[in-house]
């Protein structure tokens, strides 16, 4: 914890902004969960409730010019990289005002202008893309770095091995962030990976690897801050493993037979938002009333996103053939 002391010196507005971001992610996905349960949105979705600190902590250490690639469980990454929840919700509703004009849905939200090169429906599919974005930065000397989010499941894909090795031998400015939420759909990471830490694989590629408590925002930020400095100055890639837990099922049809309710409760007791909020209150940075206001305001914010989405038009059938080719 002492290593993370730097962050308490940050201006109050920044600290509150990070809390707001985590609550925004939480309420966004809680709302989406509610809509799926009621059958109000079609298709499927993957929620990151419980994983807010890794998305927010990682993206908070980036500059606007930096880029990310995201995953099927990517709503948190989007919001943390500056996406507008209105247009995200509209996309889930399949509306014309959505980030993908209603053609992508939950698994394909991208915000190229803000440096979000897109969520990905293929496990591990975005890892080589992140390496390519980093290659552009290096070849054009653009100075941006790319963060590649992926999960514990993707760490067993061939694309992970190929892409991390390529980034390593070319010293590319990319940070691989493995959000280990303990399960690849129903597959427990302890049954699918022989080693304790996925970050230990970094040494096999000759790059630094770090394990961090993914529910501890200050620690995520501290590890990320160091990684950003290392990568931005041209030293090459870093692999960070954030240990966390998804509170909800894999997708909307998950009965969660593969894990116990006791285990879920243990992790919910390690709520990343409550942890950070309590720390802010204990340190006298915000009051309980201010914390309550953040919680309420962010919830209301998402309600406005829902209204925006509901009032947005359906895409015209004329757009069906648009954008297959540039």
């Amino acid at each position, binding site marked *: 914890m002492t290593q993370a002391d730097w962050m308490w010196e940050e201006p109050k507005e920044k600290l509150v902004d990070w809390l707001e971001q985590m609550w925004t992610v939480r309420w966004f996905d809680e709302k989406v969960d509610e809509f799926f349960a009621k059958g109000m949105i079609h298709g499927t979705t993957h929620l990151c409730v419980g994983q807010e600190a890794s998305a927010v902590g990682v993206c908070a250490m980036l500059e606007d010019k930096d880029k990310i690639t995201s995953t099927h469980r990517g709503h948190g990454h989007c919001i943390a990289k500056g996406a507008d929840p209105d247009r995200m919700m509209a996309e889930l509703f399949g509306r014309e005002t959505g980030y993908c004009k209603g053609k992508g849905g939950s698994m394909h939200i991208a915000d190229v202008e803000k440096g979000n090169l897109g969520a990905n429906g*293929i496990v591990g599919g975005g890892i080589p893309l992140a390496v390519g974005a980093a290659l552009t930065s290096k070849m054009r000397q653009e100075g941006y770095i790319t963060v590649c989010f992926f999960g514990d499941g993707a760490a067993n894909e061939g694309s992970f091995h190929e892409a991390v090795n390529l980034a390593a031998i070319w010293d590319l400015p990319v940070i691989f962030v493995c959000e280990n939420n303990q399960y690849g759909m129903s597959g427990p990471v302890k049954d699918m990976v022989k080693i304790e830490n996925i970050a230990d694989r970094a040494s096999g590629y000759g790059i630094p690897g770090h394990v961090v408590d993914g529910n501890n925002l200050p620690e995520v930020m501290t590890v990320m801050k160091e990684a950003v400095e290392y990568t931005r100055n041209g030293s090459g890639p870093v692999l960070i493993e954030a240990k966390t837990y998804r509170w909800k099922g894999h997708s909307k049809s998950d009965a969660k037979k593969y894990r116990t309710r006791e285990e879920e409760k243990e992790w919910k007791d390690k709520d990343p938002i409550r942890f950070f909020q309590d720390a802010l209150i204990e340190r006298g940075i915000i009051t309980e009333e201010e914390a309550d206001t953040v919680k309420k305001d962010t919830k209301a914010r998402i309600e406005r996103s829902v209204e925006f989405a509901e009032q947005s038009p359906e895409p015209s059938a004329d757009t069906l053939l648009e954008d297959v080719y540039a």
Partner: protein
Amino acid sequence: MQSSAVNSSNNKETTRSITFAEAVREALSQEMREDQDVFILGEDIGVYGGAFGVTRGMIEEFGPERVRNTPISEAAITGAAIGSALTGMKPVVELQFSDFITIAMDQLVNQAAKLRYMYGGKGNVPMVLRTPSGSGTGAAAQHSQSLEAWVAHVPGLKVVQPSTASDAKGLLKAAIADPNPVIFYEHKLLYKTQEHVPEEAYTIPLGEADVKREGTDVTIVATAVMVHKALEAAEKLAEEGIDVEVIDPRTLVPLDEKTIVDSVKKTGRVIVVHEAVKRGGYGGEIASMIAESEAFDYLDAPVRRLGALPIPVPYNPALEKAMVPQMDDIMQAARDSVHRR
């Protein structure tokens, strides 16, 4: 046989003859001199010069930053190209053998082809994937396939399959300039074929077929090496009084339907021939397109298709040859069509 670009060149240049491989290298080099964003990456393309020598000498001119020799990682090479294209570069991948596209398939089919549409029109993937295809080299089942129908099936990809050195040069320039992912097939048996190729840079637009031989009795739509077999067959059939028109689509996606349909309306007979396995091959698409078009009413004989037998490519030279359509097969199909046997 000659494209319009060749006809328009001056007298001095008509004396210059280079191979298909050299024409591809010339197109790559000219584009790289012209545009700093164009670079090439692939296995053994550095000092080795590529498995078929296409990139020989390029690392000496452009250096290892722009001629990026990669590990044997087809998914990462392809994915890195897509990611760099999405962020503004114009990468050209050399995939050592087109059979290895299986390993890069997720990146091509689920990523490159779909990003733009999935993202609602944001982002382009201006990349080219060049890859040697086809049988006839004794490389057997895993190094000899013609799998172009797979990628032609996927919306979002463009597919180019040149048959001559001069076409290859102009089509590659167009492919590199195209803002979409383009799969560029180079048949191994064509690499050493030689013809006049203009020295200056020129473009052959994607989606324009070339009438390689004009004729009035029967149309043969052929791709890659089959273009040359069809032209040989046409010369022999002329002696029998059968006047053959040979059309090379040059690009499968987009397909120049009009040139094919116009030709069939003129001749009333058509044979579609490719080296790929006939079952599920792109020839079926071309044949259906003709049958569904206004050319149907002009047909005097059924549309015929020639393609490889549905077997893995065998090693033995005689067996390998027996698998794919030969000149005699094309001649017989043309006679059958003309005489409706």
